[in-house]
């Protein structure tokens, strides 16, 4: 790159949206006078096709090597301008975006001079940062086409088939001797009006898996170790009986370890009396009873069963765990099956809430038609099973009738909670992912990342996440296959150039960065030196802000670049100014929303964008106070949302620590503010600005007045 820094500043009018408030020609003239700026231009509509091509001509004609765009908001328009400068031959990371519509003209509509001054300040800050910008590159990490699937139940098999059908290699590891998972224990599976033999469904799928040319199955095998990262895993698979080990080169992993019934030991006499069974055990019994046309009786009993009592919500919906999700469905299905044996068995279902969705309501009606009786017990008063000699009786208080009942029973069926497989205890350590106390894995994002872990390249399918129905499990299997197939089809994963970079010369090998990275993107080598796997790094900057030796920099958000913005913001009248650090995702979304809604607030703040509030280091905050800022604001996503999982929590604790430090240094800690603002919450951001200005006694300090209420934009 040319050594001389040549910055071009493009200021947009946005028709009258910016130019109607901000004196754009004045801002352009001001920009021309800034250091390194060789060109400043006003565009009526900078995002229009004709202006974009003009911009490209100007970049080429003037040999620009840095570009500052002052216009709307980077949240919507940064990709467009990045592409534009890139097409003009400039690295897209040499672009700095300054928001003078959402942050200036739309929110300071009645104070044209103040708005123009703020626009100048923001442009100056942008230029100061731009001078320090360095090229960045999209980072690619090669990914081959070998996928490991852990668990041979329906979710795992579905994933394997979907992966294999694309021509990728699937290695399916199952700890038991046969494929099929929990279905092997069940008699039937059902959904809406459809019902099928569980064994047949499992066997049919297993035979497809076993005969698939691209799928290799390891039964009676477990994962011994997993090392590496996406595209580059070394996995050791151990055959249990043969003690044989095999090492596999793996690119992606699907975790489908399934679930099992939690044994309700000690509850309702389970484990003591053979007449108390679980739903899974009942399905085995029903299978035998169906095959045998004789009396329906328990093994080693001569007594035919006349009265079956099903108790739902055993070990669930309490302090320890929630709803088992599928128990109501199972209880109704099996109650119907007992009735359909045609032996005149009396069936009672004792329940707390009947949780049957849409078409499941039809099976409920069917059960009622067949004579299954439903009794509801209170949440805090479970039924009791009494054993008097040969007699088994269930006492309960029926909530709906308000009476106590005693039901005779020769079979008590418990609908227990579920838990994840025991191998999860090892696996979560091997894969460095988390699981809850019931051994169910924690997905990357409850809403939008249900099929994966935070670590790239590892997908999550089926009941390993939470109990679910067969249909849902198969959907998750196919969906998880999609998640891991994307990098395998592309042949690589690609990360944005905003990544961490560690300078090992100052590193004291403390290991904090490795421990704190939410994406497992920092690995530690034999000498305890940390290394960033750049393709896995999401650029949040948490490691950088926390590094005690300050040896981690974040491309496009380096310490020096942020310091330059702080210094530039506070160049004039710092005692009237607030430096605000806002995260790109939600806080800036809130800022933009305030703009779109034309909420008017005082103009004292100069905002500095960071990808995540976790990027804001103590030093940055102290720097602003050192430069005499009236106040500092750190704004991030509203809890629990964070686009980097827990960055805002880290930021919150850092702000707390910084306040203590400020106090010691004799700076009023109340001058440091913290706000968590959703992207929809423009009012909250505007309110924060007003409150800060009031609290810091900046009202009428030349940077715009605190005025209330919305401007009547519709008039």
């Amino acid at each position, binding site marked *: 790159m040319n050594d001389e820094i040549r910055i071009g500043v493009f200021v947009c009018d946005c028709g009258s949206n910016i130019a109607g408030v901000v004196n754009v020609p004045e801002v352009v003239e001001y920009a021309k006078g800034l250091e390194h700026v060789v060109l400043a231009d006003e565009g009526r509509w900078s*995002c229009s096709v004709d202006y974009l091509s003009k911009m490209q001509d100007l970049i080429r004609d003037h040999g620009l090597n840095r570009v500052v765009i002052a216009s709307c908001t980077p949240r919507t328009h940064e990709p467009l301008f990045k592409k534009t400068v890139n097409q003009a031959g400039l690295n897209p990371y040499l672009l700095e975006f300054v928001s003078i519509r959402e942050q200036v003209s739309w929110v300071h509509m009645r104070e044209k001079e103040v708005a123009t001054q703020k626009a100048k300040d923001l442009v100056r800050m942008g230029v100061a940062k731009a001078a320090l910008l360095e090229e960045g590159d999209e980072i690619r990490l090669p990914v081959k086409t070998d996928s490991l699937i852990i668990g041979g139940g329906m979710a795992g098999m579905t994933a394997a088939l979907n992966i294999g*059908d694309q021509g990728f290699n699937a290695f399916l590891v199952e700890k038991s001797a046969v494929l099929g998972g929990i279905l092997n224990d069940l008699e039937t599976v059902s959904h809406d009006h459809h019902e099928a033999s569980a064994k047949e469904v499992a066997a049919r799928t297993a035979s497809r898996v076993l005969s698939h040319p691209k799928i290799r199955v390891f039964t009676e095998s477990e994962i011994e170790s997993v090392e590496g990262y996406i595209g580059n895993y070394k996995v050791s698979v151990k055959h249990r009986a043969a003690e044989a080990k095999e090492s596999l080169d793996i690119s992606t992993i699907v975790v489908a370890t399934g679930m099992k019934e939690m044994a309700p030991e000690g509850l309702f006499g389970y484990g003591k009396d053979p007449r108390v069974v679980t739903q899974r055990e009942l399905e085995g019994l029903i299978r035998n009873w169906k095959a045998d046309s004789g009396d329906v009786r328990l093994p080693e009993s001569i007594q035919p069963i006349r009265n079956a009592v099903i108790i739902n919500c055993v070990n669930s919906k309490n302090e320890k*765990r929630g709803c088992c999700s599928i128990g109501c469905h199972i209880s109704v299905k099996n109650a119907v099956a007992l009735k359909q044996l045609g032996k005149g068995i009396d069936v009672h279902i004792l329940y707390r809430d009947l949780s049957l969705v849409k078409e499941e309501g039809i099976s409920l009606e069917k059960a009622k038609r067949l004579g299954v009786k439903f009794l509801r017990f209170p949440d805090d008063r479970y039924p009791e099973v009494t054993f008097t000699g040969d007699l088994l009786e269930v006492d309960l208080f029926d909530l*709906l009738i308000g009476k106590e009942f005693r039901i005779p029973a020769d079979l008590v069926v418990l609908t227990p909670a579920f838990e994840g497989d025991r191998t999860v205890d090892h696996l979560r350590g091997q894969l460095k992912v988390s699981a809850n106390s019931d051994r169910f894995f924690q997905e990357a994002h409850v809403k*939008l990342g249900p099929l994966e872990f935070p670590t790239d390249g590892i997908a999550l399918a089926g009941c390993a996440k939470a109990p679910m129905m067969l249909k849902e499990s198969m959907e998750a299997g196919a969906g998880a296959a*999609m998640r891991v197939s994307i990098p395998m089809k592309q042949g690589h994963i690609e990360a944005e150039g905003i990544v961490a970079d560690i300078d090992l010369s100052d590193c004291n090998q403390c290991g904090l960065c490795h421990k704190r990275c939410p994406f497992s993107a920092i690995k530690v080598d034999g000498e305890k030196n940390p290394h960033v796997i750049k393709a896995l790094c999401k650029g949040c900057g948490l490691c950088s802000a926390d590094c005690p030796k300050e040896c981690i920099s974040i491309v496009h958000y380096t310490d020096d670049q942020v310091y330059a913005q702080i210094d530039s913001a506070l160049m004039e009248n710092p005692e009237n100014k607030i430096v605000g650090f806002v995260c790109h995702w939600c806080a800036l979304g809130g800022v933009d929303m305030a703009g*779109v*809604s034309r909420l008017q607030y005082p103009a004292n703040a100069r905002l500095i964008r960071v990808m995540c509030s976790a990027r804001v280091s103590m030093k940055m905050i102290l720097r602003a106070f050192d430069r005499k800022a009236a106040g500092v604001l750190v704004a991030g996503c509203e809890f629990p949302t964070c686009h980097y999982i827990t960055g805002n929590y880290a930021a919150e604790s850092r702000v707390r620590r910084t306040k203590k430090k400020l106090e010691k240094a004799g700076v009023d800690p109340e001058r440091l503010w913290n706000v968590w603002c959703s992207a*929809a919450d423009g009012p909250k951001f505007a309110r924060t600005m007003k409150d800060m200005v009031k609290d810091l006694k900046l009202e009428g300090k030349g940077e715009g007045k605190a005025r209330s209420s919305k401007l009547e934009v519709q008039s």
Partner: protein
Amino acid sequence: MNDSILIIGGGIAGINCALNASRYGTKVYLVDDTPSIGGMMARLDKTFPTNDCSICIEAPQMYEVDNQENIEILTNTELKKVKTKPGGFEVRLVKKPLYVDEEKCTGCRACVDACPVSLADEMDGKIGGKRKLISMAFPQAVPNLVFVDSRCRSGEMRSAGACIGGCAVDCSQCRECPIALCVKACEKEGKKAITLWQAPKHMTLEVKSIVVATGIRDAAPAGDLLGYGLYGNVITGMEFERLMNAGGPTAGEIIRPWDRKHAKKIAWIQCAGRGLAQGKGVPYCSKICCMIATKQTIITKEHDPSVNATVFYNDLKAYGKGFWEFYRKAKENGVNYVRGRPYQVQEDPQSRNLIIRYEDLETGTLKFEEVELLVLSTGVVPNNRNARLAKVLDIELDHLGFFKEKDPLCAPLETTVEGIYLCGGATGPIDIAESVVQACAAGMKAVSRG
């Protein structure tokens, strides 16, 4: 047949299906019959059970859809005809006019400010939501464009105060309108993006597979269900969601529609209308309403802990991971859950409060409760366009109006037509996470066909 796919519906399911397929390397046409993608989720305030802000997590995905080079977004577009071909489909679509040049409009909204007519918004009308005759679907709309109400284009809004009121010429006779204030405002901005002469645009595409992701709607209360049609302070769950939303018509103030006072005593009625005669209510459990109401009570308490919140319910549906804990959190925050069946709602004509008469299921006694604002959880229903679409695609609906899977136990999300797949609310009541799972699964099937 070429390697592209068509996704019908730009809600969270369609968006995720599109993003996955395009990252896989497949060309995607994402069709939505409204002017913006985003669907239901874009209107929500928070999502259960984590209370993540809805638009905060959805908007980045919407922008990504917009920026993916191999996704073509076709908004305001409907399917007209689908012909099955070997290994794929020939699809005829029509894009209804927005009366705005998509290349030129920058979403600056100068025209919206100029338009003199505000009408009650389709979604937020009861709680005071207004919409201009030229407007944007919502602030984060993708594509970020305005559109002209077609009734205004045809001249029907003159009596409502449209700016062309005095003009003697029948609107159908004019190609352009030199007097319309929106047109003038746009010209003043130097854009000329309002194109009132726009005609429906017909397109033909060839795709190898089709994913139906038409979503769900909240059920409208039938007639005067529990006072809805009669009293101003009875609203639906979705309307309450919009009240809570900082981006909604009240900027997040939980105020009652009648007098715009902050409601201090609020009740939710679950399963409102369920089990009534056909056409009066949803006949099935909609699965998600219990958690929606629970979320709303928690957020309400966050806004103002002194609000008294009561939920009347029958069976609590806390079906997913963390949902039961979510319900417990609501209870710990002081929300009253009453197992009860409300059967009548009356308004106090002076205070405009609502008196709810209900049967307490735990005691069997009849009781009443007076509240300032009443929220009806009416459940969710299929998209009303499903029937027409099923005909066009030659696939089946179930008796409730959701799309039918060929065999949910062996081939979930597949229809009777090979190459047409389903995901999200098209299959039934569903939450966001489940929609995303299905979107990935349907995407897998769609891209790997053939």
